[in-house]
């Protein structure tokens, strides 16, 4: 058991990454995640067999991650919304080449350069591919600083296990916030050997090739099918979510990350007024927890999705509910965080 320390979200990701064995970080500063880049600089530059590069651009940084990942090391980059957009080409290449890495997006208000306050409007980009082609990232959505730590560590394992890029999808609030964290002793898990694909020098073994293309369409289609198989496996095995108060709820809220925290306070306040609210909080946004949402919609007929977007995750909730019940939506954007009282008012509209 480690000691509890007070840590800022962004710095906690950095510490968790290093403890998970990440020694290669490439990034370019952007508010509200710059403390992570600064933390990696401070720590990695002092370590042996480690590298920190403040790249000339986000595009350079993701391609450095691509190169490092090809050698089988644990590597990471981080940015915030506009910077993540710049990385999309590289991310698509990495997904095609089936390499493990971790990408952190501490979202801010968009679109465009947007604002620097928290947002959740990159959900589509994160969960539906983001770049070109049929691929997905494994997307993890923490809602506390402790969960940032735990999920960052899990992210590296998941990336290695599925040889697929993993995205930590947070927002400016959770990045800037300080909470108590504990770096727990991690259970050793067995992960597939990287020798079968990593570029580690081929003396005495068959050559490994890492290429993000195949000019023979039938071969390229096979690559697609192979990658798709992993996504199906992810949907079977890696779905994670938290539920609160699902039995006898008058209405179910589906929310992730920062918004889910606000909902927890709404639940407490609503209880005082005799209103029973349930929460489904997806922790993995891809693979999406559609089964629990589908099951719940067979018992409870009122759903409200709350996001710091104008309606993105709500589409996945609707797919899961599949028309059984009505799914409503409430969102604030541009860096505005919805307040507990406005959410409760919204909920009351549907309980009349």
């Amino acid at each position, binding site marked *: 058991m480690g000691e509890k320390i007070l840590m800022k979200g962004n710095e906690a990701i950095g510490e968790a990454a290093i403890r998970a064995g990440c020694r290669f970080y490439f990034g370019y500063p952007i508010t509200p995640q710059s403390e992570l880049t600064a933390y990696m600089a401070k720590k990695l530059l002092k370590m042996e067999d480690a590298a920190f590069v403040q790249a000339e651009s986000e595009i350079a940084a993701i391609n450095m991650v691509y190169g490092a990942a090809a050698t089988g090391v644990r590597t990471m980059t981080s940015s915030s919304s506009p910077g993540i957009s710049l990385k999309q080409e590289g991310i698509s290449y990495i997904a095609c080449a089936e390499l493990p890495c971790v990408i952190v997006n501490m979202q801010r208000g968009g679109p465009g350069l947007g604002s620097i306050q928290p947002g959740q409007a990159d959900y589509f980009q994160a969960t539906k591919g983001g770049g070109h082609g049929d691929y997905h990232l494994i997307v993890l959505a923490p809602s506390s600083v402790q969960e940032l730590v735990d999920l960052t560590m899990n992210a590296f394992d998941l990336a290695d296990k599925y040889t697929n890029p993993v995205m930590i999808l947070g927002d400016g609030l959770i990045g800037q916030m*300080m909470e108590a964290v504990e770096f727990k002793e991690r259970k050793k898990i067995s992960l597939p050997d990287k020798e079968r694909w990593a570029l580690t020098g081929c003396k005495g073994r068959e050559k490994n090739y890492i290429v993000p293309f195949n000019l023979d369409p039938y071969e390229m289609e096979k690559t697609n099918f192979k990658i798709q198989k992993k996504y199906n496996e992810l949907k079977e095995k890696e779905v994670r979510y938290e539920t609160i108060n699902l039995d006898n709820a008058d209405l179910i809220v589906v929310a992730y990350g920062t918004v889910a925290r606000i909902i927890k306070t709404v639940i407490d306040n609503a209880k005082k007024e005799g209103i029973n609210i349930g929460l489904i909080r997806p922790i993995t946004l891809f693979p999406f927890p559609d089964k629990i949402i589908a099951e719940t919609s067979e018992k409870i007929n009122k759903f409200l999705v709350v996001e710091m977007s104008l309606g993105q995750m709500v589409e996945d909730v609707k797919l899961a509910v599949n028309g059984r019940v009505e799914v409503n939506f409430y969102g604030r954007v541009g860096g505005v965080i919805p307040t507990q009282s406005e959410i409760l008012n919204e909920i009351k509209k549907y309980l009349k």
Partner: protein
Amino acid sequence: MLERIIISGFGGQGVMLMGRLLAYAGMIEGKKVAWMPSYGPEMRGGTANCTVLISSNEIGSPIVSHPKILIAMNQPSLDKFEPNVSENGLIVLNDSLIEREVKRNDVKVIRIPADDIANKLGNSRVANMVVLGAYVKKSGVVKLETIFKVLEKTLTGPKQKLIDINKEALKLGAEIVKE
């Protein structure tokens, strides 16, 4: 128990540090804590504020629109946050830099001549600790001794020599609210 605190002042008055010390002390005393800075395109001399939550239960929303406690280190901070303080709340203000009266009559007010006391101690920069000492003593949200402990943990290396004057400032602040 849930303390919702907003601490606000000029950039450079050490309001972020006040919040961090409080949160750290709360954590050491076994409570759930969260600290949120205001972040934005602030300029030097502009206002800065942070939110601190100290609770016996898990903290849900870290957003505080109606603080129970406002610590205002300067006039613009009082102007900005006074209307939001919840009924029967507490405003601790820096009397050295705030001339006007508090308009609300449904909140408690403590005025601390923080800069004057800090100047007497020979370092105007510990005005924040004077106010923190007063608030901690008045509210009992954490023990003053725990704040001392946190100072010892936080001020290390060349900053170690500042521990004593900070403790002194905290004590003087605490004494004001004793009577």
